[in-house]
Protein backbone atom coordinates (compact mmCIF):
# COMPACT_ATOMS: atom_id res chain seq x y z
CA UNK A 1 0.00 0.00 0.00
CA UNK A 2 1.66 3.21 -1.15
CA UNK A 3 -0.67 5.72 0.46
CA UNK A 4 -0.38 5.58 4.24
CA UNK A 5 -2.67 8.55 4.89
CA UNK A 6 -6.29 7.40 4.86
CA UNK A 7 -7.46 10.86 3.87
CA UNK A 8 -5.68 10.43 0.53
CA UNK A 9 -7.20 7.06 -0.29
CA UNK A 10 -9.01 7.03 -3.59
CA UNK A 11 -10.47 4.66 -6.12
CA UNK A 12 -7.78 4.43 -8.80
CA UNK A 13 -10.05 2.77 -11.39
CA UNK A 14 -12.69 5.42 -11.03
CA UNK A 15 -10.07 8.19 -11.09
CA UNK A 16 -8.56 6.83 -14.31
CA UNK A 17 -11.98 6.61 -15.95
CA UNK A 18 -12.76 10.19 -14.98
CA UNK A 19 -9.47 11.59 -16.29
CA UNK A 20 -9.64 9.51 -19.47
CA UNK A 21 -13.11 10.88 -20.13
CA UNK A 22 -11.85 14.42 -19.47
CA UNK A 23 -8.94 13.96 -21.88
CA UNK A 24 -11.13 12.42 -24.53
CA UNK A 25 -13.69 15.22 -24.28
CA UNK A 26 -11.05 17.93 -24.35
CA UNK A 27 -9.46 16.41 -27.42
CA UNK A 28 -12.77 15.99 -29.22
CA UNK A 29 -13.66 19.63 -28.59
CA UNK A 30 -10.29 20.97 -29.71
CA UNK A 31 -9.21 22.15 -33.14
CA UNK A 32 -6.03 20.16 -32.59
CA UNK A 33 -7.77 16.87 -31.99
CA UNK A 34 -5.20 14.34 -33.20
CA UNK A 35 -3.72 13.36 -29.85
CA UNK A 36 -1.48 14.51 -27.04
CA UNK A 37 2.15 15.53 -26.72
CA UNK A 38 3.70 14.98 -23.29
CA UNK A 39 7.11 16.18 -22.17
CA UNK A 40 8.67 13.16 -20.51
CA UNK A 41 11.02 14.32 -17.76
CA UNK A 42 11.74 10.95 -16.21
CA UNK A 43 9.56 11.83 -13.23
CA UNK A 44 6.35 10.29 -12.05
CA UNK A 45 4.05 13.18 -12.97
CA UNK A 46 4.86 13.12 -16.67
CA UNK A 47 4.92 9.31 -16.74
CA UNK A 48 1.45 9.13 -15.21
CA UNK A 49 0.12 11.86 -17.49
CA UNK A 50 1.36 9.95 -20.52
CA UNK A 51 -0.18 6.74 -19.20
CA UNK A 52 -3.53 8.50 -18.71
CA UNK A 53 -3.37 9.93 -22.22
CA UNK A 54 -2.71 6.44 -23.57
CA UNK A 55 -5.68 5.09 -21.66
CA UNK A 56 -7.87 7.89 -22.99
CA UNK A 57 -7.00 7.86 -26.69
CA UNK A 58 -4.58 4.99 -27.27
CA UNK A 59 -0.79 4.92 -27.36
CA UNK A 60 -0.79 5.67 -31.10
CA UNK A 61 -2.14 9.14 -30.37
CA UNK A 62 0.38 10.02 -27.68
CA UNK A 63 3.83 11.39 -28.47
CA UNK A 64 6.59 11.88 -25.93
CA UNK A 65 9.27 14.53 -26.14
CA UNK A 66 12.48 14.08 -24.16
CA UNK A 67 14.17 17.45 -23.66
CA UNK A 68 17.38 17.10 -21.65
CA UNK A 69 20.04 19.77 -21.23
CA UNK A 70 23.53 19.94 -19.78
CA UNK A 71 22.39 19.87 -16.16
CA UNK A 72 19.80 17.10 -16.50
CA UNK A 73 20.45 13.92 -14.59
CA UNK A 74 21.33 10.94 -16.85
CA UNK A 75 18.77 9.02 -14.80
CA UNK A 76 16.05 11.28 -16.14
CA UNK A 77 16.55 10.23 -19.74
CA UNK A 78 16.81 6.60 -18.75
CA UNK A 79 13.51 6.79 -16.86
CA UNK A 80 11.79 8.75 -19.61
CA UNK A 81 12.83 6.13 -22.17
CA UNK A 82 11.62 3.38 -19.85
CA UNK A 83 8.26 5.13 -19.52
CA UNK A 84 7.86 5.41 -23.28
CA UNK A 85 8.79 1.76 -23.74
CA UNK A 86 6.38 0.59 -21.05
CA UNK A 87 3.53 2.61 -22.56
CA UNK A 88 4.45 1.84 -26.17
CA UNK A 89 4.52 5.46 -27.31
CA UNK A 90 6.73 7.09 -29.92
CA UNK A 91 9.25 9.68 -28.78
CA UNK A 92 11.85 12.09 -29.96
CA UNK A 93 14.79 13.39 -27.95
CA UNK A 94 15.98 16.94 -28.51
CA UNK A 95 19.13 18.08 -26.74
CA UNK A 96 18.54 21.61 -25.47
CA UNK A 97 22.14 22.43 -24.59
CA UNK A 98 23.17 24.02 -27.94
CA UNK A 99 20.10 26.26 -27.97
CA UNK A 100 20.58 27.27 -24.35
CA UNK A 101 24.23 27.98 -25.11
CA UNK A 102 23.27 30.21 -28.01
CA UNK A 103 20.82 32.06 -25.74
CA UNK A 104 23.62 32.70 -23.27
CA UNK A 105 21.96 30.75 -20.47
CA UNK A 106 24.99 28.76 -19.29
CA UNK A 107 27.33 31.73 -19.58
CA UNK A 108 24.83 33.84 -17.65
CA UNK A 109 24.60 31.20 -14.94
CA UNK A 110 28.39 30.93 -14.75
CA UNK A 111 28.83 34.67 -14.47
CA UNK A 112 26.17 34.96 -11.76
CA UNK A 113 27.66 32.10 -9.74
CA UNK A 114 31.14 33.61 -10.06
CA UNK A 115 29.84 36.79 -8.48
CA UNK A 116 28.88 34.74 -5.44
CA UNK A 117 32.01 32.57 -5.40
CA UNK A 118 34.88 33.73 -7.65
CA UNK A 119 36.42 30.24 -7.54
CA UNK A 120 33.36 28.69 -9.17
CA UNK A 121 34.01 26.60 -12.27
CA UNK A 122 31.40 25.46 -14.77
CA UNK A 123 32.21 21.84 -14.04
CA UNK A 124 31.08 22.18 -10.41
CA UNK A 125 27.60 20.86 -9.70
CA UNK A 126 25.52 23.33 -7.72
CA UNK A 127 22.08 23.61 -6.27
CA UNK A 128 19.83 26.13 -4.57
CA UNK A 129 18.21 25.18 -1.29
CA UNK A 130 16.02 26.62 1.45
CA UNK A 131 16.55 26.23 5.21
CA UNK A 132 15.76 22.91 6.83
CA UNK A 133 12.41 21.36 7.62
CA UNK A 134 9.67 23.89 8.31
CA UNK A 135 8.31 21.70 11.11
CA UNK A 136 11.42 22.32 13.20
CA UNK A 137 12.66 25.66 11.94
CA UNK A 138 11.06 29.09 12.12
CA UNK A 139 13.69 30.48 9.74
CA UNK A 140 12.34 32.37 6.77
CA UNK A 141 12.77 31.15 3.23
CA UNK A 142 16.31 32.37 2.64
CA UNK A 143 17.86 30.79 -0.43
CA UNK A 144 21.39 29.43 -0.28
CA UNK A 145 23.71 28.36 -3.04
CA UNK A 146 25.60 25.13 -2.51
CA UNK A 147 28.60 24.42 -4.72
CA UNK A 148 30.32 21.05 -4.97
CA UNK A 149 33.94 21.30 -6.18
CA UNK A 150 35.02 17.84 -7.38
CA UNK A 151 38.18 17.90 -5.24
CA UNK A 152 37.13 19.99 -2.29
CA UNK A 153 34.67 20.59 0.46
CA UNK A 154 31.16 21.76 -0.47
CA UNK A 155 30.70 25.51 -0.26
CA UNK A 156 27.59 27.31 0.93
CA UNK A 157 26.64 30.94 0.37
CA UNK A 158 23.55 32.98 1.13
CA UNK A 159 22.34 34.23 -2.25
CA UNK A 160 22.16 37.98 -2.87
CA UNK A 161 18.72 38.96 -4.13
CA UNK A 162 19.84 40.20 -7.52
CA UNK A 163 21.80 36.98 -8.13
CA UNK A 164 18.83 34.84 -7.13
CA UNK A 165 16.66 36.74 -9.60
CA UNK A 166 19.19 36.23 -12.40
CA UNK A 167 19.54 32.53 -11.62
CA UNK A 168 15.77 32.09 -11.60
CA UNK A 169 15.32 34.02 -14.84
CA UNK A 170 18.03 32.01 -16.61
CA UNK A 171 16.84 28.68 -15.25
CA UNK A 172 13.28 29.47 -16.32
CA UNK A 173 14.51 29.83 -19.90
CA UNK A 174 15.08 26.08 -19.84
CA UNK A 175 11.45 25.41 -18.97
CA UNK A 176 10.16 27.97 -21.43
CA UNK A 177 12.27 26.48 -24.20
CA UNK A 178 10.72 23.11 -23.40
CA UNK A 179 7.27 24.69 -23.67
CA UNK A 180 8.17 26.15 -27.06
CA UNK A 181 9.34 22.80 -28.38
CA UNK A 182 6.32 20.97 -26.99
CA UNK A 183 4.05 23.40 -28.84
CA UNK A 184 6.08 23.16 -32.02
CA UNK A 185 5.59 19.41 -31.93
CA UNK A 186 1.94 19.56 -30.89
CA UNK A 187 0.90 22.13 -33.46
CA UNK A 188 2.81 20.36 -36.23
CA UNK A 189 0.92 17.17 -35.44
CA UNK A 190 -2.43 18.77 -34.63
CA UNK A 191 -2.11 17.54 -31.03
CA UNK A 192 -2.67 19.14 -27.63
CA UNK A 193 0.05 19.62 -25.02
CA UNK A 194 -0.87 17.72 -21.87
CA UNK A 195 0.49 19.32 -18.70
CA UNK A 196 2.00 17.41 -15.82
CA UNK A 197 1.41 19.73 -12.87
CA UNK A 198 -0.01 18.03 -9.78
CA UNK A 199 -2.31 19.40 -7.08
CA UNK A 200 0.46 20.52 -4.71
CA UNK A 201 2.42 22.27 -7.45
CA UNK A 202 -0.64 24.05 -8.81
CA UNK A 203 -1.88 25.14 -5.39
CA UNK A 204 1.50 26.38 -4.20
CA UNK A 205 2.70 27.92 -7.44
CA UNK A 206 5.52 25.45 -7.96
CA UNK A 207 5.64 25.75 -11.73
CA UNK A 208 6.97 28.26 -14.20
CA UNK A 209 4.51 30.55 -15.88
CA UNK A 210 4.65 29.94 -19.64
CA UNK A 211 7.13 27.15 -18.88
CA UNK A 212 5.84 23.88 -17.48
CA UNK A 213 2.66 25.83 -16.72
CA UNK A 214 2.23 26.62 -20.43
CA UNK A 215 0.03 23.76 -21.63
CA UNK A 216 -3.39 23.11 -23.15
CA UNK A 217 -4.83 21.16 -20.24
CA UNK A 218 -3.80 19.79 -16.85
CA UNK A 219 -5.12 16.25 -16.36
CA UNK A 220 -3.52 15.55 -12.97
CA UNK A 221 -3.77 18.98 -11.36
CA UNK A 222 -6.46 17.75 -8.98
CA UNK A 223 -4.36 14.82 -7.72
CA UNK A 224 -2.01 14.90 -4.75
CA UNK A 225 1.49 13.60 -5.34
CA UNK A 226 0.88 10.38 -3.44
CA UNK A 227 -2.13 9.70 -5.65
CA UNK A 228 -0.07 10.34 -8.78
CA UNK A 229 2.46 7.81 -7.52
CA UNK A 230 -0.33 5.33 -6.83
CA UNK A 231 -1.67 5.75 -10.36
CA UNK A 232 1.80 5.21 -11.81
CA UNK A 233 1.95 1.83 -10.11
CA UNK A 234 -1.63 1.15 -11.20
CA UNK A 235 -0.46 1.57 -14.80
CA UNK A 236 2.44 -0.84 -14.34
CA UNK A 237 5.20 1.76 -14.33
CA UNK A 238 8.23 0.66 -12.34
CA UNK A 239 8.69 1.55 -8.69
CA UNK A 240 11.88 3.43 -9.47
CA UNK A 241 9.81 5.82 -11.56
CA UNK A 242 6.69 5.84 -9.39
CA UNK A 243 8.62 6.43 -6.18
CA UNK A 244 11.44 8.60 -7.53
CA UNK A 245 11.99 11.64 -5.29
CA UNK A 246 10.64 14.72 -7.03
CA UNK A 247 13.38 17.04 -8.23
CA UNK A 248 13.67 20.21 -10.33
CA UNK A 249 16.60 18.43 -12.08
CA UNK A 250 18.11 21.62 -13.36
CA UNK A 251 21.41 22.44 -11.62
CA UNK A 252 23.58 19.37 -11.88
CA UNK A 253 23.62 18.58 -8.16
CA UNK A 254 20.85 16.50 -6.66
CA UNK A 255 18.16 18.45 -4.90
CA UNK A 256 14.61 17.47 -4.10
CA UNK A 257 11.49 19.58 -4.31
CA UNK A 258 11.36 19.28 -0.52
CA UNK A 259 14.75 21.00 -0.20
CA UNK A 260 14.25 23.59 -2.92
CA UNK A 261 10.64 24.62 -2.42
CA UNK A 262 8.36 22.95 0.09
CA UNK A 263 10.70 22.59 3.11
CA UNK A 264 8.55 19.60 3.98
CA UNK A 265 8.32 16.02 2.80
CA UNK A 266 5.98 15.88 -0.18
CA UNK A 267 3.81 13.34 1.62
CA UNK A 268 3.24 15.83 4.43
CA UNK A 269 2.31 18.57 1.96
CA UNK A 270 -0.27 16.15 0.57
CA UNK A 271 -1.58 15.40 4.03
CA UNK A 272 -1.88 19.07 4.96
CA UNK A 273 -3.54 20.12 1.73
CA UNK A 274 -6.09 17.32 1.74
CA UNK A 275 -7.11 18.28 5.28
CA UNK A 276 -7.39 21.93 4.31
CA UNK A 277 -9.57 20.89 1.39
CA UNK A 278 -11.75 18.96 3.83
CA UNK A 279 -12.05 22.04 6.06
CA UNK A 280 -10.50 20.43 9.15
CA UNK A 281 -9.43 22.71 12.00
CA UNK A 282 -5.86 23.09 13.29
CA UNK A 283 -6.39 20.89 16.35
CA UNK A 284 -7.84 18.03 14.31
CA UNK A 285 -5.07 18.28 11.74
CA UNK A 286 -2.43 18.34 14.48
CA UNK A 287 -3.90 15.25 16.11
CA UNK A 288 -4.19 13.35 12.85
CA UNK A 289 -0.65 14.20 11.73
CA UNK A 290 0.93 13.83 15.17
CA UNK A 291 2.23 17.41 15.21
CA UNK A 292 1.78 20.32 17.64
CA UNK A 293 -0.92 22.86 16.93
CA UNK A 294 1.80 25.55 16.79
CA UNK A 295 3.52 23.61 14.04
CA UNK A 296 0.30 23.22 12.09
CA UNK A 297 -0.43 26.94 12.37
CA UNK A 298 3.06 27.75 11.06
CA UNK A 299 2.85 25.23 8.20
CA UNK A 300 -0.60 26.40 7.17
CA UNK A 301 0.52 30.02 7.26
CA UNK A 302 3.33 29.18 4.86
CA UNK A 303 0.99 27.24 2.56
CA UNK A 304 -1.42 30.18 2.58
CA UNK A 305 1.37 32.66 1.87
CA UNK A 306 2.62 30.65 -1.12
CA UNK A 307 -0.92 30.25 -2.41
CA UNK A 308 -1.44 34.00 -2.17
CA UNK A 309 1.79 35.10 -3.83
CA UNK A 310 1.30 32.62 -6.67
CA UNK A 311 -2.38 33.46 -7.29
CA UNK A 312 -1.62 35.51 -10.38
CA UNK A 313 0.18 32.54 -11.94
CA UNK A 314 -3.09 30.62 -12.01
CA UNK A 315 -5.03 33.32 -13.85
CA UNK A 316 -5.02 34.78 -17.29
CA UNK A 317 -3.27 38.18 -17.31
CA UNK A 318 -5.51 40.75 -15.63
CA UNK A 319 -7.33 43.23 -17.81
CA UNK A 320 -10.17 45.72 -17.51
CA UNK A 321 -13.66 44.84 -18.69
CA UNK A 322 -14.65 46.57 -21.93
CA UNK A 323 -17.50 48.46 -20.24
CA UNK A 324 -14.97 50.64 -18.40
CA UNK A 325 -14.32 52.53 -21.63
CA UNK A 326 -16.03 55.89 -21.74
CA UNK A 327 -18.07 56.72 -24.78
CA UNK A 328 -16.48 59.60 -26.68
CA UNK A 329 -18.97 60.01 -29.49
Amino acid at each position, binding site marked *: MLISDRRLNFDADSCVREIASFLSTQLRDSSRNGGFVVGLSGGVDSATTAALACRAVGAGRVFGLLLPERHSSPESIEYAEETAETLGISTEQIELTPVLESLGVYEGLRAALCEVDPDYRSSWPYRIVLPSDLRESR*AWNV*YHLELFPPDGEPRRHRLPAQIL*RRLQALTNVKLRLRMTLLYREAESRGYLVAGTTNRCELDQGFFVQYGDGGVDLEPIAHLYKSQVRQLALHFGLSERIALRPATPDTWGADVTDDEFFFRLPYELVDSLLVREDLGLDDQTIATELDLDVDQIVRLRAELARRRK*VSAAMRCIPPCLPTNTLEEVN
Partner: protein
Amino acid sequence: MVPTTLPELRAQLTEFFVETYYVASPDELQPDTPLLETGILDSTGVLELVAHLEERYGISIGDEDIVPENMNSIDRLSAFIASRR
Protein backbone atom coordinates in the same frame (compact mmCIF):
# COMPACT_ATOMS: atom_id res chain seq x y z
CA MET B 1 24.23 59.26 9.97
CA VAL B 2 23.21 56.00 11.61
CA PRO B 3 20.13 56.53 13.82
CA THR B 4 20.29 55.49 17.42
CA THR B 5 16.71 55.72 18.58
CA LEU B 6 13.85 53.40 17.81
CA PRO B 7 11.72 56.13 16.21
CA GLU B 8 14.63 57.05 13.92
CA LEU B 9 15.12 53.41 12.99
CA ARG B 10 11.41 53.02 12.29
CA ALA B 11 11.44 56.07 10.04
CA GLN B 12 14.47 54.88 8.10
CA LEU B 13 13.09 51.39 7.67
CA THR B 14 9.76 52.76 6.49
CA GLU B 15 11.61 54.84 3.94
CA PHE B 16 13.56 51.78 2.79
CA PHE B 17 10.40 49.72 2.31
CA VAL B 18 8.55 52.45 0.46
CA GLU B 19 11.53 53.05 -1.83
CA THR B 20 12.45 49.44 -2.41
CA TYR B 21 9.06 47.73 -2.65
CA TYR B 22 5.81 48.96 -4.05
CA VAL B 23 3.55 50.08 -1.23
CA ALA B 24 0.39 51.49 -2.77
CA SER B 25 -0.93 53.17 0.34
CA PRO B 26 0.85 54.34 3.53
CA ASP B 27 -1.87 52.54 5.48
CA GLU B 28 -0.48 49.26 4.19
CA LEU B 29 2.76 49.81 6.07
CA GLN B 30 2.27 50.42 9.77
CA PRO B 31 5.01 49.69 12.33
CA ASP B 32 3.29 46.42 13.23
CA THR B 33 2.24 45.35 9.71
CA PRO B 34 3.35 41.74 9.14
CA LEU B 35 5.70 42.02 6.20
CA LEU B 36 5.64 38.45 4.95
CA GLU B 37 1.95 37.64 5.30
CA THR B 38 0.92 40.86 3.57
CA GLY B 39 3.21 40.08 0.66
CA ILE B 40 5.35 43.20 1.11
CA LEU B 41 8.32 40.84 1.49
CA ASP B 42 8.88 37.62 -0.44
CA SER B 43 11.83 35.23 -0.50
CA THR B 44 13.85 37.56 -2.68
CA GLY B 45 12.79 40.62 -0.73
CA VAL B 46 14.06 39.03 2.49
CA LEU B 47 17.50 38.72 0.91
CA GLU B 48 17.38 42.36 -0.17
CA LEU B 49 16.34 43.44 3.29
CA VAL B 50 19.10 41.47 5.04
CA ALA B 51 21.75 42.83 2.68
CA HIS B 52 20.48 46.36 3.31
CA LEU B 53 20.54 45.96 7.08
CA GLU B 54 24.06 44.56 7.04
CA GLU B 55 25.37 47.34 4.86
CA ARG B 56 23.54 50.30 6.34
CA TYR B 57 23.80 49.42 10.00
CA GLY B 58 27.12 47.57 9.93
CA ILE B 59 25.73 44.46 11.57
CA SER B 60 26.24 40.81 10.71
CA ILE B 61 23.06 38.78 10.36
CA GLY B 62 23.24 35.01 10.59
CA ASP B 63 20.69 32.63 9.15
CA GLU B 64 19.46 31.95 12.67
CA ASP B 65 18.53 35.63 12.98
CA ILE B 66 16.27 35.61 9.94
CA VAL B 67 13.13 34.61 11.80
CA PRO B 68 9.73 36.29 12.17
CA GLU B 69 10.51 37.41 15.73
CA ASN B 70 13.26 39.67 14.38
CA MET B 71 12.08 40.57 10.91
CA ASN B 72 8.36 40.44 10.39
CA SER B 73 7.48 44.08 11.05
CA ILE B 74 9.16 47.45 11.17
CA ASP B 75 8.81 47.43 14.95
CA ARG B 76 10.56 44.09 15.24
CA LEU B 77 13.27 45.08 12.78
CA SER B 78 13.92 48.27 14.70
CA ALA B 79 14.26 46.39 17.98
CA PHE B 80 16.50 43.80 16.35
CA ILE B 81 18.86 46.42 14.90
CA ALA B 82 18.95 48.33 18.17
CA SER B 83 19.86 45.15 20.02
CA ARG B 84 22.79 44.57 17.68
CA ARG B 85 24.34 48.01 17.92
